[in-house]
């Protein structure tokens, strides 16, 4: 029998808050994390702003409950902070943690530390403390590091599908539960700002130097952000045993590929359409059952048009309320899927739909408008959360009220 999959806890850290409560307050108060870069050491400090978490490594270590100088990368520290909160919020015992799986996502893992000590690491003559970062240029390092710290051993996996990564973590976790391979999986992603990614996106010329404007006619690119978020997923049978009350259900998911271009979305949103449609199909619901879409909405020319057309194709004339929360947190890359899954859970729990900041004018070739003021609804049933990425990856999650 395939198992139903429930969310029993979550944790999050972004530029708008270091836990779920702070993130919720910021969403409620329209306060965003966009501003000058102060922590990352880069020549672009005066020219590119970002949604940076204004905490030093020292402060992050203390929040994560680890000693300094033990070789935790910024990505791992952000991850640990969110992971610890998720574990607490689901009230997991030591034994339950040990028997959990951890599926985490990141694009570049500990590249920030690898780039900081690159010259030293490459010079065999040099010796010192930096050697603890010798293995951080791999995505998987952060997952093992976090698992070791909290004591997870049953199943480990790291996903790296660019900006859709952590939506795929949640999907993989749900699959493991549905297939009776695990009773409990903690899924999400973590991503720290680095020179590598900041410059990567800058060379692609898709960064907006101003505050990003998703779905606006004059949108001009994305803002890069950093953060981490994790969801605790548990099987129906685990909940029957523990009597724990779920927060929501992971009811469906879809993963497809645009197969159009290495870094651009197709002009007709074929991949976006497919991913959303598969999510609805696997949840066994109809388009009219969707109450809100937390869009990928990066505010690039290309993404918003492609995603918007995909939405129009699936929903026709009755398009559900939708918004992008990227102006709050920036694009947290591999963490975006789980960050926005948490925002969607906050939507379901509180009956609140987060406004799309900075929207002014309708896109002439799309003619759909996002939610711009906080909307309160007494009954929200189903929320779609979209995450797309380079390589044509498109993923969509369907989270439902229980």
């Amino acid at each position, binding site marked *: 029998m395939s198992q139903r999959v429930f969310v029993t806890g979550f944790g999050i850290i972004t530029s708008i808050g270091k836990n779920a409560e702070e993130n919720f307050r910021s969403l409620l108060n329209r306060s965003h994390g966009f501003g000058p870069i102060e922590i990352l050491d880069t*020549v672009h400090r005066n020219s590119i702003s970002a949604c940076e978490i204004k905490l030093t490594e020292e402060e992050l270590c203390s929040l994560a409950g680890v000693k300094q100088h033990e070789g935790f990368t910024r990505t791992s520290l952000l991850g640990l902070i969110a992971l610890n909160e998720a574990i607490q919020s689901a009230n997991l015992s030591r034994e339950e943690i040990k028997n959990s799986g951890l599926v985490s996502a990141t694009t570049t893992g500990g590249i920030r530390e690898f780039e900081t000590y690159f010259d030293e*690491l490459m010079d065999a003559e040099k010796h010192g403390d930096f050697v603890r970062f010798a293995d951080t240029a791999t995505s*998987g390092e952060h997952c093992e590091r976090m698992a070791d710290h909290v004591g997870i051993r049953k*199943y480990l996996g790291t*996903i790296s599908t660019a900006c859709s990564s952590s939506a795929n973590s949640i999907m993989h976790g749900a699959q493991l539960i549905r297939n009776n391979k695990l009773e409990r999986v903690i899924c999400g992603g973590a991503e720290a700002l680095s020179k590598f990614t900041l410059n990567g996106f800058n060379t692609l010329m898709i960064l907006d130097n101003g505050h990003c404007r998703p779905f606006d006619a004059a949108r001009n690119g994305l803002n890069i952000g950093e953060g981490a978020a994790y969801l605790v997923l548990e099987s129906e049978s685990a909940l029957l045993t523990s009597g724990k009350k779920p927060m929501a259900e992971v009811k469906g998911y879809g993963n*497809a*590929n645009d197969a159009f271009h290495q870094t651009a979305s197709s002009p007709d949103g074929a991949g976006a359409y497919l991913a959303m449609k598969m999510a609805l199909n696997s949840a066994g619901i109809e388009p009219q059952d969707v109450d809100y879409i937390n869009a990928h909405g990066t505010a690039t020319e290309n993404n918003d048009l492609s995603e918007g057309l995909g939405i129009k194709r699936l929903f026709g004339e009755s398009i559900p309320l939708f918004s992008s929360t990227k102006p709050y947190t920036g694009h947290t890359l591999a963490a975006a899927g789980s960050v926005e899954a948490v925002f969607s859970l906050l939507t379901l729990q509180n009956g609140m739909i987060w406004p799309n900041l900075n929207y002014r004018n309708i896109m002439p070739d799309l003619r759909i408008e996002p939610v711009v003021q906080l909307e309160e609804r007494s009954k929200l049933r189903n929320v779609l959360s979209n995450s797309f*990425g380079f*390589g044509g990856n498109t993923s969509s999650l369907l989270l439902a009220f229980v």
Partner: protein
Amino acid sequence: MEKTGPYYINGVGIISPQKTFDPDNFLSEIIEYDHNVLTCVTPDFKAYINPIQMRRLSHMLRIGLSAATICLRDSGIKSPDGIITATGYGFLEETAKFLNEVLNQSEKQLTPTYFMQSTSNALAGLVALTFKCMGFNNTYASKGFGMENALIDGMMQLNQNPSTSLLIGSYDEAADVQYKASIRVGHFKVEYINNLRLFETKTKGSIQGEGSAFFMLSGNKSSSTWCAIRDVHMVYKPEPGELKRELEKFLSTNKISAHDIDVVVNGASGDVDHDIIINDLIHQVVAGSMEVRFKHLSGEYSTSTSFAGWLAASILKKQNIPKAVMHAHRRSPKKLETILVINQYMAKNFTFILMQR
């Protein structure tokens, strides 16, 4: 009730430090190395990639796309229903190129292509684009568990849709940056050795390898079926005695006795400390099976499980064990029916894969 296997390997494509790109050739010629870094023996890429596309691709993307193409051709499938790739260190060569520019040109006038081709999912995206596959697409970058995650993901998809065909593969490259960084933490041997004498060494560390291998996995048999995968299991950082318990449980869950296992593929890496663990396990649980080893031919890398999988699939399909991989010839069964792969990475990530004819 959904199906839970077996999962048939209906096509294979592999490019490795040995001459493996021709599916009909099974280690008839062995390549020796004497400098501890084993790099791919590559085919003429023009046979697999069109020249306009090729110009823009990094060396590793060419290797990966060629391996995927060989697999598709071997399986007789034009476009798979889904693509899952795995890697340990990703496209580290392109990552290093971009990083060098960032650091040496004070973050100015950088080459976007290096960045675009540095993302771990670049190969899965490229294969999808090349073969117009809009289906499921995923990439695992889990160090020593990437290929295992990919296989388990694929097997779960096939439980739901057994008639589909998924292209599942891995890539890792012997990048200079990784070598320089990893040798500091004891991943690789300091003294130069001949790769064919790897298992005679008594020192720490292994030799670096690389490679890309793809498998066409389906819940249905086809005319090109090589063998079947019954099950995959991972054990992370086992406590004393745990590996033996987990392996015995793995075999009993799959209703297999140790006696049924004709061949064990041993993922020993030539690291004197690490190999004790896996060799002891084999001695304790499957001492009566024939034992083959492969890391002297492939080198050590995070997704070496795919080389092990290719080796086991080839033995089952061709009913032949090349001399170069034979480590202990403990029996002579009439037919080679069942193979157990036991792989390990850095004595931290352990993998069991059960494969059958």
